[in-house]
């Protein structure tokens, strides 16, 4: 290990990993019980949890690429967390296969009898059918994993070889087109995985909303992790108040972007007032779902927005950590509202299965994340820009 490498002091990674596995164990047992009670509710809960954890990974990948094309201290601070989180896309690709247990239980378009009785679904069948769904997912995952692993390998190679202009250029040259690839693939992924739950409904704002949801999850998660690590040890001297303000401002920007897109979709559908489009909101503002909608407005927008306006919140370690964790928790609720309300059932205690699936996937996800994170310096000390953005690390 190089002298300049930054390691977290006072963090017991092994114990955290053990706890994560314990959470997975509980989650899997609870999911098994849930699956016995209602197999299709288990798969829906799995879809919610999978979209949340995959969202953090993919959001982290997008942020990693944004950081390479824009630069800045925030990017170097969060770079290693983004790399470790986006490496988990491979894990999410494997877990995705669980959906294959019973695709028709989740997606209406995968039920032959539903397609036979609906002309619209027959018309959409060339796109919305199980084979095409699987092939498209394979293409998305291959592209994402290739980008994530390349960026991670090139960045970490510099830890061993020292700063390399060639490798740094390569990261930047991949990130530009990589962002375009992310934008294109995540558009189709959002249609496949969430929008097609109501196969006759469509909204052109939904794909960007899905993408910004991922980026918001990735940002909130990474900010929470860096601040939790910065409570003591060498990182506490690196994550300065001025950088915490940057992190808080970025979080605020993504919260506002999420709110802007969420509201735009609602406003457009409200204005045009067409039955085939209003049904999406109609299903989500009754049967108990309206409380979730109100909670989203208050706790994913109003509260973080007002708190992050204040400079005190942004520079305070505890408060900023709290806001980031609040936003992250509300991302689960948002995805739950998107997915579960699509089945036109009133809210019920089946959300316990969603929670179990969240724990089951979350434990493994966190285990893999820590495994990736603790193998390398927490700050890419060999990055060519380190002396410019983080002079106190470069020394």
């Amino acid at each position, binding site marked *: 290990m190089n002298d300049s490498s930054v390691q977290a002091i006072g963090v017991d990674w092994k114990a955290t990993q053990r706890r994560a596995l314990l959470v997975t164990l509980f989650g899997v047992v609870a999911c098994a019980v849930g699956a016995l009670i209602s197999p299709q509710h288990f798969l829906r809960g799995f879809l919610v949890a999978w979209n949340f954890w995959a969202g953090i990974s993919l959001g982290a990948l997008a942020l990693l690429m944004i950081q390479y094309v824009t630069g800045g201290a925030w990017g170097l601070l969060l770079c290693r967390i983004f790399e470790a989180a986006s490496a988990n896309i491979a894990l999410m690709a494997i877990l995705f296969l669980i959906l294959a247990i019973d695709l028709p239980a989740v997606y209406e378009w995968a039920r032959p009898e539903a397609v036979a009785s609906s002309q619209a679904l027959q018309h959409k069948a060339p796109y919305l059918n199980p084979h095409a769904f699987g092939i498209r997912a394979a293409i998305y995952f291959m592209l994402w994993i290739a980008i994530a692993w390349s960026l991670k390998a090139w960045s970490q190679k510099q830890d061993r070889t020292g700063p390399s202009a060639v490798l740094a250029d390569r990261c930047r040259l991949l990130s530009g087109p990589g962002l375009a690839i992310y934008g294109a693939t995540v558009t189709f992924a959002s249609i496949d995985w969430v929008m097609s739950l109501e196969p006759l409904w469509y909204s052109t704002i939904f794909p960007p909303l899905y993408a910004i949801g991922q980026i918001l999850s990735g940002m909130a998660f990474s900010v929470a992790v860096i601040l939790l690590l910065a409570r003591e040890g060498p990182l506490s001297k690196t994550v300065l108040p*001025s950088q915490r303000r940057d992190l808080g401002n970025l979080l605020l920007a993504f919260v506002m972007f999420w709110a802007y897109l969420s*509201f735009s979709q*609602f*406003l457009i559908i*409200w*204005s045009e*007032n067409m039955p085939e489009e209003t049904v999406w909101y109609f299903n989500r503002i009754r049967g108990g779902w309206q409380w979730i909608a109100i909670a989203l407005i208050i706790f994913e927008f109003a509260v973080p927005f007002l708190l992050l306006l*204040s400079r005190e919140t942004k520079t305070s370690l505890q408060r900023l950590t709290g806001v980031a964790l609040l936003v992250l928790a509300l991302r689960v609720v948002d995805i739950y509202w998107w997915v579960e309300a699509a089945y036109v059932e009133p809210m019920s205690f089946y959300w316990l299965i969603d929670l179990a699936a969240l724990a089951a996937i979350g434990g493994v996800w966190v285990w893999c994340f820590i495994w990736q994170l603790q193998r390398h310096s927490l700050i890419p000390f060999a990055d060519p820009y380190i002396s410019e953005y983080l002079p106190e690390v470069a020394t």
Partner: protein
Amino acid sequence: MKEASPIYGLMAEFEQPAQIVAAAVAARDAGYRLVDAYTPFPVEGLPEAIGFPRTRLPLIIFIGGLVGCIGGFYMQYWCNAVNYPINVGGRPYNSWPMFIPVTFEMTILCAATAAVVGLFALNGLPMPYHPVFNVPQFAQASRNRFFLCIQAGDAKFDLPSTRNFLDGLKPHAVYEVQP
């Protein structure tokens, strides 16, 4: 306070932003309170170093925003639901989602206006005369030099010893500022 000094204060000129932050910290540590700094661009850490007081500007901006938000919404509500209700495609008269964009714009407009007006009011602008401009070199404060001024009204101000103190900070030059 001592008898009125014939000058406004002493001003030190620095070439680097880091120097003026260090000088401001040293001046505060030495006990000077009536200290002000003039720089061509915002310098990180300088407001804290000269002990810049908390202002009421954020509160003024927040109230401006609130007025714009409530006023903007009420304006549309009153027009569409009270004064001249028209049924548009069966939507309720109080079609609140349609009001949000204008409400948002009014919030930003009033908050921004409050920010500018509040900024002028709290800074006492417009201010046609200020003694610091009596130093000819001060014109460079808007280009590439950084100035730290200790005012004669400061309890600890004493012309020779304050001049000594400023000289000890290794400035480019020290000037007396005429009132």
